[in-house]
């Protein structure tokens, strides 16, 4: 196993679960990122601003975590992530993620954390399905093409 980082993975996971729990118990909202972002436009009065605030806060928290993380745990590297995908492929992948999460009504956070946390059968089916197609896609890209 390469670059396996169990401690930071569990710690980060606990925080993601905490975030979902906070938004649910305090605001009564599911923290599926695709759903929160997808509901911003078209605007519905009284239902847009909290979505924008959440979506802007995610990269802010990501930046703080990136800066602070390496001093918390030696597992966390101080290097910037890389996204070397060719622009055309990035657009294709982005479109697939946008279309798929809207049609399937959820992504890794909405189905994976919130839905599974609520023991939803729909979400379990969604997670198994997107995990399966993602694993097959990576296999094709890395081992066949």
């Amino acid at each position, binding site marked *: 196993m390469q670059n396996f980082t169990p401690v930071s993975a569990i710690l980060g996971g606990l925080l*993601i679960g905490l975030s979902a729990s906070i938004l649910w118990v*305090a605001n009564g909202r599911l923290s599926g990122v695709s759903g929160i972002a997808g509901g911003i436009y078209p605007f519905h009065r009284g239902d847009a601003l909290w979505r924008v605030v959440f979506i802007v806060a995610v990269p802010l928290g990501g930046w703080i*975590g990136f800066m602070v993380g390496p001093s918390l745990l030696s597992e966390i590297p101080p290097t910037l*992530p890389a*996204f070397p995908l060719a622009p055309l492929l990035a657009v294709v992948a982005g479109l697939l993620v946008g279309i798929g999460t809207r049609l399937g009504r959820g992504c890794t956070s909405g189905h994976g954390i919130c839905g599974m946390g609520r023991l939803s059968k729909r979400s379990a089916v969604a997670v198994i399905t997107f995990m399966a197609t993602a694993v097959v896609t*990576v296999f094709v890209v890395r081992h066949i093409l």
Partner: protein
Amino acid sequence: MKRSFPVLAVAALAGIVFGFGLAVSRMIDPEKVMNFLDFGAIPAGGWDPSLAFVMGGGLLVALVGMRLDRWVGLRAPLVAPAFVRPDRFQIDRELVIGSGIFGIGWGLSGLCPGPAFADLSLIPTSVGLFVVAMLVGSWAMGQALEWSAEPRHPSASVGVPAE
């Protein structure tokens, strides 16, 4: 939801904790995500199971937090008027096909929506195009779903829902 300060403060806090968790678990790194999805690397010993531990840690808390309302008999959320619960319960074709399409995009890029937004503060030039495409895809699919739901009455489309 009424535009109230506590609701927005909670949204900000939840978003920051979410992004922080993604950075700490390094799910902001598409390469690391793909190293988990790469089951073909298991025989050679190059597989990285970290993402499963992120999911496990998240579920550990969510299994309590997402059901806390039922357990303690909360009728309404702490600072908002009502819980907004999912309105679908059947396993339908849309769920399976949509999730399947999402997985292909996720496997191609190593990015799902949360990390894509989180990376906007770290590597905006390379991830920006992906995020724009993702938002366009989501919007277009939303439009298509709305049209197919009311094919004969396009003029009677949904108005502003009640708050």
